[in-house]
């Protein structure tokens, strides 16, 4: 059966401009909070089984015809807090999408399954006995097929990657082409600003339209303020529709539902639960925040690289991809000048020299298997607070990351390597790496880090005393309330998380569908 719509512009998404002043009292079998990786999959899987589904999305509806490939503009339109979400110390930029399709609209499309050593931890420490690679295989396979996940072909690996792979080869360090959820990649390099030609298989062009085909209603610009619950059962949500242009309230929206699914992402989900008085028996809501704090290491080469041209992500280094071998991966990526300018080392002549040679600069980022050391809470002004400081152990992993990256760069022929410390650190000779990097402080407020992967704040587990939701995704102690997003992860997973979110959400949806009439009474 084909869809009734061709383009994202055609999708009948309600927005602040169309919803009318309300108040709107709606009812459905299921209300889903958030339209990103977890929410979109859930909406489709339940709608396909004939459930009436309403998806409420706090961010705007931005069809891909309005993706301008200008990073500053798109960060304002598509990202949480206009791309300015930070931890309390200010040294960690926490990037999340906030738009119809959530972070999947702005992600870089790397597609990994959950590593087996992570699943083993989840089984052994959190009683998630059915989280084996084999048991999850059908969920991964299904979503991989649907989202055209494939290992990058040679033409999808750009010059930035080729240069770094050359360094890896010289050192005998292992690298692999990445798998990505992309169909006919146009090699424009603008994944992080939204794919203007719909090649990236984000939720905006896949699961959300499919859910709408089966009758799901998607309402954008609408932030869920509270979850309603009574006698240990969730009964619906209370939301506000805000005009994104003026910031003014347009309407109150209430949805009465037999099931509430929270999929607002790992920062917002715990805040919503806490606002709703749902702090759980374990006291773990909002705790155990992890985020793969990433440092971007850049290097200057004689040759012209034009790293922003071609697919955003091509290959990665898997040499240290297990905690016993380091616990990090390196992904090879650059972006456009209006993004990279923010990461420029030095000032004045040093800055201009760097920008003048940007076409000769290669880039890679690290993802580490970080400890669940953070808390999402509110400060004394009542605002969201991300309290996350890299632990001593993780700081040492970051030190190793810097050393290994620099070695790879010099093996590839780099002239110098730039470390993103606030006080500029430039390494000009391979012999200096250990001396310079060992001397770096790397404590809070010394190095600029970015998280693309917040997770872990509503951890899943069998024991209500140390986890927030059960193995079936249901909130411990509250019936008809489910969580289906990256906040479920009991520990950090080191690799890019979207596929794990899709698989978990598919599995949870399956469990809900299995209960069928028991839950929905029809």
């Amino acid at each position: 059966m084909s869809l009734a719509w061709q383009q994202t512009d055609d999708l009948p998404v309600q927005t602040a401009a169309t919803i009318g002043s309300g108040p709107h009292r709606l009812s459905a079998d299921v209300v889903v909070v958030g339209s990103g990786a977890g929410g979109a999959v859930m909406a489709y899987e339940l709608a396909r089984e004939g459930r009436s589904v309403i998806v409420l999305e706090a961010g705007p509806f931005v069809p891909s015809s309005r993706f301008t490939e200008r990073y500053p503009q798109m960060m304002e339109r598509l990202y949480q807090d206009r791309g300015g979400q930070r931890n309390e110390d200010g040294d960690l930029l926490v990037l999340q999408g906030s738009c119809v399709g959530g972070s999947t609209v702005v992600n870089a499309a790397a597609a990994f399954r959950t590593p087996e050593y992570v699943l083993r931890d989840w089984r052994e420490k959190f009683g998630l006995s059915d989280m084996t690679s084999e048991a999850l295989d059908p969920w991964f396979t299904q979503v991989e097929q649907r989202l055209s996940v494939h290992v990058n072909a040679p033409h999808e690996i750009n010059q930035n990657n080729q240069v770094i792979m050359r360094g890896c080869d010289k050192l005998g360090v292992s690298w692999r082409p990445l798998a990505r959820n992309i169909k006919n990649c146009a090699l424009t390099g603008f994944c992080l600003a939204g794919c203007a030609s719909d090649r990236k298989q984000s939720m905006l062009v896949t699961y959300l339209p499919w859910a709408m085909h089966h009758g799901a209603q998607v309402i954008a610009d609408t932030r869920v303020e509270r979850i309603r619950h009574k006698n240990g059962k969730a009964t619906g949500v209370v939301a506000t529709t805000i005009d994104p242009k003026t910031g003014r309230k347009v309407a109150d929206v209430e949805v009465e539902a037999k099931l509430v699914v929270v999929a607002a992402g790992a920062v917002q989900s715990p805040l919503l639960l806490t606002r709703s008085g749902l702090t759980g028996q374990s006291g773990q809501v909002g705790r155990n925040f992890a985020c793969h704090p990433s440092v971007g290491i850049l290097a200057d080469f004689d040759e012209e690289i034009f790293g922003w041209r071609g697919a955003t992500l091509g290959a990665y280094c898997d040499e240290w991809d297990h905690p016993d071998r380091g616990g990090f991966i390196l992904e090879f990526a650059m972006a456009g000048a209006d993004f990279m300018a923010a990461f420029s080392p030095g000032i004045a002549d040093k800055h201009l020299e760097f920008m003048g040679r940007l076409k000769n600069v290669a880039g890679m980022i690290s993802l580490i298997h970080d400890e669940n050391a953070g808390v999402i809470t509110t400060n004394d002004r009542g605002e969201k607070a991300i309290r996350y400081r890299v632990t001593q152990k993780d700081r040492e992993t970051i030190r190793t990351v810097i050393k290994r990256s620099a070695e790879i760069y010099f093996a590839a022929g780099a002239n110098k390597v730039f470390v993103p410390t606030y006080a500029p650190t430039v390494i000009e000779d391979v012999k200096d790496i250990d001396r310079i990097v060992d001397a770096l402080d790397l404590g809070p407020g010394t190095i600029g880090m970015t998280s693309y992967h917040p997770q872990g704040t509503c951890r899943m587990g069998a024991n209500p005393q140390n986890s927030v939701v059960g193995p079936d995704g249901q909130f411990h102690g509250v019936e008809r309330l489910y969580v289906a997003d990256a906040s479920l992860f009991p520990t950090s997973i080191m690799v890019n998380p979207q596929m794990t979110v899709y698989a978990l959400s598919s599995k949870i949806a399956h469990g809900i569908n299995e209960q069928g009439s028991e839950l929905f009474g029809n």
Partner: protein
Amino acid sequence: MSADSTPPQPLPNHLRATRRAVIAGGAAATATLSLPACTSGSKGDSAKLPHIGDDLAVVEQIVDTLLAIDEGSPFVPIEKTDTMANIDRLFATLPDHVRSDLSKGLTLFNLAAIVLGWYFRPFTALDRADRIAYARRWETGNKTQQGLLFALKQIVYVSYWREEITWGPIQYDGPVTRRLGIARQGLTPLPETTVEGAAK
């Protein structure tokens, strides 16, 4: 007086920028990545830059210092861009308390030049070479100084390089999809398969 030979010194306590000012700078910095498109004129006119307001003199000098584009350089002069207007629009988006903390940070940055390095003049009264030397002291100074300078760099650099006119000298291509006529693929058809084991 030049400060080049004097090693970096910590700021006196009463002049030390507060941690909140630094965080305010950080918030402002990342918000810089997300300014609305702007069309208005650029520099020097406080009526046109109402959100920079009283900080105009120090912000102008910071922009000049951090970019330091000389006449005849291949880079596009600041006044030919909307850098100042972009910063103004950024400041307009900041919550009041963040804007106020940032203003305190800017004031401290300006006045600390009097004692730091013994310039005996505020930052705005220094010549460009001294301003650059002073900014470098912050860049490598204590954590608070480094944090604020890092934030200022982000504000200035993104506000300048977001301007299309600046891309030519560095051969940055900018947006490509429309220029190259790449077709939109549109919505992905409904999936036909349900994998065994994932079926109901």
